Each structure stands twice: as structure tokens, then as C-alpha cells.
């Protein structure tokens, strides 16, 4: 059975048509899926419908066998612990240290009092240290996050998602604010997470060449509709034109270079 399944998901903001239009697909455990599409296509909306940060207008989404739309508040919190999320702007609490931000990933498992006081047990702490080490942040562990570089901040974001012990990690343009070097480090970490830990990665990207390089599968979205769903090697110039519409010319040029090189 698929880990994540979307059936006929539609989303209208303010009764306007249609940020998402009848989207259906399913994703397996450990898959690395990229979602590409022009600005305003509905990529962020799609991602946020999965953990119900945005409520879908209609359709059905199930995560790990649980249908999310009807869950009570408490059950929704429990479901969200299984879904990590990382953001373009990292969304850390800048005044807190790396370790504190990473441990925020455990809050979904906590009682009100324990979470308010920030009490974490030894196991949670050593897990956090382990993950921080994997992501190469040892030296920054007690630094405040406003003293980190963008690439380091994003790795803190990944660590926060990982301590949740998630089954899926959703990434909304994780490298859009980073230079090519830092971007590569982040994407390599994400690939390792999916290959070695078996965690499903769904990532919104606006660089087609990055999507081609890293993904097991690409989903192309245009105006809320899925217009492509397949392996990177099946993505043709024509289909890129379908996904991006008129913006596509320079993208196709880059793709041509890749095939030549």
C-alpha cells in the first residue's frame, strides 16, 4: 500500500478557481519525488494540503493509511509528527540555539507542560546530537541560529524534521535562497535521507536540472493540474513546455546542454 495517496484533491482559495484542480497521485516509502511548475502553479498549496497546513476544499488524502481530512485536533497533531517539513526561509527561531531548534521537532510528542517547559529526555537529546552530527553541525550546536549561514540554517531545518522520526519530509523550495554549493550539500543530504533512512522526500523545486539529477520521479504542475508524472528520463522538452508554458524557453536550453554533455 502506498505511503501517501491523494485522490481528486481540489483547493480553491476564497472561492476563486483553482489553486489545485483534481490532483491524484500516490507515493511509496523511500521515494524521492520532485514537484516542478511555474510560479503560482500550486506547488506550495499541494505540499501544505498533505499536512493540512492548508485545508483542501475537496478530495481525500491519506498518509500511512490514515485519512487526514476528518481527524480531530489531537489526532492531526499525531499525524503531523510523521510528516516533517522544511522551508525556503528555514523558519527557525533565530534567537535560540541550534540544539533548541532541533529539539522543537519533538514537541508533537509532548504533553502541554513538558513542551512548554522544554523538557526533553535523554533519549531525545542523544538522538538530536546524533542527527546534528550526521548533518555536520557539530561545531555550531550551541550557537544561536542568527549566527549561522543560510546553508547551515537549512541543515538545522532538516535536523528538526528528522528528530520527528517522520515517514515523509515535505520540502518547500529548500534551496531557493542558497548558493549552488550550499544547495548541493542540502540536496545530497535529502537524497541520503531517502536512500539510507527510507524516508519519503517530496520537494518543490524551481530548478529543473536539480529535479532531474536527484529525483526518482517528477510531478509537473501547471495551474493546479498535474500535467506530468513520471521518471526523470521520460521528461521531454515538449513536456517541459507543457509544464512551464511560455517561461520554458531558457529551461529547455539548459536541458539541451545536459543531453549534449
Amino acid at each position: 500500500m502506498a505511503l501517501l495517496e491523494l485522490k481528486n484533491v481540489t483547493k480553491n482559495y476564497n472561492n476563486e478557481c483553482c489553486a489545485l484542480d483534481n490532483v491524484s497521485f500516490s507515493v511509496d516509502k523511500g521515494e524521492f519525488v520532485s514537484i516542478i511548475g511555474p510560479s503560482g502553479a500550486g506547488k506550495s498549496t499541494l505540499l501544505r494540503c498533505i499536512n493540512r497546513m492548508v485545508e483542501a476544499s475537496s478530495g481525500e488524502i491519506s498518509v500511512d493509511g490514515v485519512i487526514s481530512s476528518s481527524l480531530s485536533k489531537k489526532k492531526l497533531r499525531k499525524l503531523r509528527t510523521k510528516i516533517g517539513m522544511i522551508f525556503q526561509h528555514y523558519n527557525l527561531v533565530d534567537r535560540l540555539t541550534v540544539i533548541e531548534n532541533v529539539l522543537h521537532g519533538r514537541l508533537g510528542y509532548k504533553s502541554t507542560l513538558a513542551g512548554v517547559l522544554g523538557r526533553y529526555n535523554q533519549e531525545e537529546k542523544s538522538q538530536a546530537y546524533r542527527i546534528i552530527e550526521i548533518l555536520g553541525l557539530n561545531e555550531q550546536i550551541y550557537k544561536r541560529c542568527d549566527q549561522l549561514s543560510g546553508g547551515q540554517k537549512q541543515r538545522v531545518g532538516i535536523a528538526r524534521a528528522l528528530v520527528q522520526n517522520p515517514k515523509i519530509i515535505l520540502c518547500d523550495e529548500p534551496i531557493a535562497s542558497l548558493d549552488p554549493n550550499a544547495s548541493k550539500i542540502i540536496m545530497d543530504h535529502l537524497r541520503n535521507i531517502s536512500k539510507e533512512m527510507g524516508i519519503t522526500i517530496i520537494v518543490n523545486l524551481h530548478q529543473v536540472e536539480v529535479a532531474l539529477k536527484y529525483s526518482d520521479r517528477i510531478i509537473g504542475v501547471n495551474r493546479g493540474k498535474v500535467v506530468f508524472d513520471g521518471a526523470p528520463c521520460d521528461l521531454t522538452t515538449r513536456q517541459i513546455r507543457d509544464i512551464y508554458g511560455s517561461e520554458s524557453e531558457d529551461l529547455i536550453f539548459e536541458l539541451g546542454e545536459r543531453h549534449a554533455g
Partner: protein
Amino acid sequence: MRDDIFTKRRNGNLVFFLALLILSVGSIIITEYDVIKGFTSITKAVIWGGSNFYPDAESLRILPEIFPKLQETVLMSIAATTVAAVLALVLSLAGSQTTRINRIFSIVSRGIASLFRNIPIVAWAMVLMISFSQSPLTGYLAIFFGSLGFLTRAFMETIDEVGNNSIEALQATGASYFHIIFQAVLPASMPQMISWLLYMIETNIRDATLVGVLTGTGIGFSFDLYYKRFDYHAASLVVLLIVITVIVIELVSNNVRRVIL
């Protein structure tokens, strides 16, 4: 097209200054305020003050009398302000766009804030005197209510400035409302809030003097007493002490600010 914007802006500024000029000249005419006499009487006041309103050696005898009064005023201001800050924190969390629980609470607490903020402290003192007569409690409550409105507003803006990003991230991990308040909102906004609190204490020590004149308590009462007895040397010593106190408090809070910000 571009030029139009600049012309528009210049004309806008011109209109603004003209309006200001008309307003100012209009008010002078209506109130029959004599500008020349106004300025010449300033010099007169300075000359009178220089020859009468200064502490002399003899007035120092009142020091043991007024130190406890000064202390009472300072402590009363600090107590009233900090208690108001606690309530203001609750109101601002309920009122802020990013942390509000629902719209009705938000509107109510915004309403309380702007109502209390727009009633001058002196008016509070007068009104409260009706029920509590001339007592320290009247002064305490006047300062408390006056601060409550201002601090709620200031805290609300601080919370709004911290923004939605880290709140969104913690929501996505499955953290509950109180987790988010204590782990993200407060750590991020506390330094700025403390800075506002210190500012409020500074202004309140000044205002408490004035309130004391009305309610017959604290250092304001001492000032009133000496002033009405035409003991200008003693009255001026009181003023000098207040000025020194306010400066000391300001220096202390500037240091605190430097450390926390």
C-alpha cells in the same frame, strides 16, 4: 509616467505642509495665543526660576523626609508596571494576528488596549479617586490601567513583527498552541518586550509624580506641599531628585537593553 509619480509626491508634500501651516496659524488665532508674549515670558520664567527655584543648603534638611516618599513612588511605579505587563502579555497574545485563538477574543483585546491607551493617566487618577479617594491604591491603579493599554499595543506589535515563519514550522511538527507560544513566540519577542517594559517604567516614574500630586501620595505630594508653602528651595530639590532618579533608571535600563538585545 515615472515623472508623474515624482510630481505627485512633491505636490503631496506641498499640500501636507500647507495644511500644517494653516492648522498652526488657525490654532494661534483661535486661542488668541500671543506668540511674542509667549517667547518673552519664557525668559521671564527662566529669570524667576534662576533667582528662586533652586535648592539651597537649608533645604537639604528635608532629605530624610522625602527619600521614603521617593522610594514609595519608584517602587509603586515598578510594581504597577510589571503587573500590567503580565496582563498585557496575555491580552497581546489573544489580540495579535499571528497568535490569536479566534477573532472575537482578538477584537475584544484590541478594543481594551485602545480604550485604555487613549485615557490619560491623570484622567484615570481623577476617576479612580471617586471610588478609592486619596490613597496609594488610586495611584497604583491609575498607573496600572494607563500602562496596560500602552503595553498591550506595544507587545502586540512585537509579536506581529516576529512573524509567522517559526509558528508555521512548529505547527507543522505537531506542536500545540501553548508549545508554540512558549517555544517560539516568547523566546523571539521577549527582549523587545522587556525593552518596552523598561521604557514604560521610566515614563511611569515621571507620571507617578504627577499622579501623586492629585492623589496626595508619594513624592508628588511632597512637591505639592512645599510648593504651596512657597518653600521653593525645597520644591526644587524634589524636582532635582526626580530628575536624577529618572536618569539613573534610564542608565540602568539602557545597560539591561544592551545585554539582552
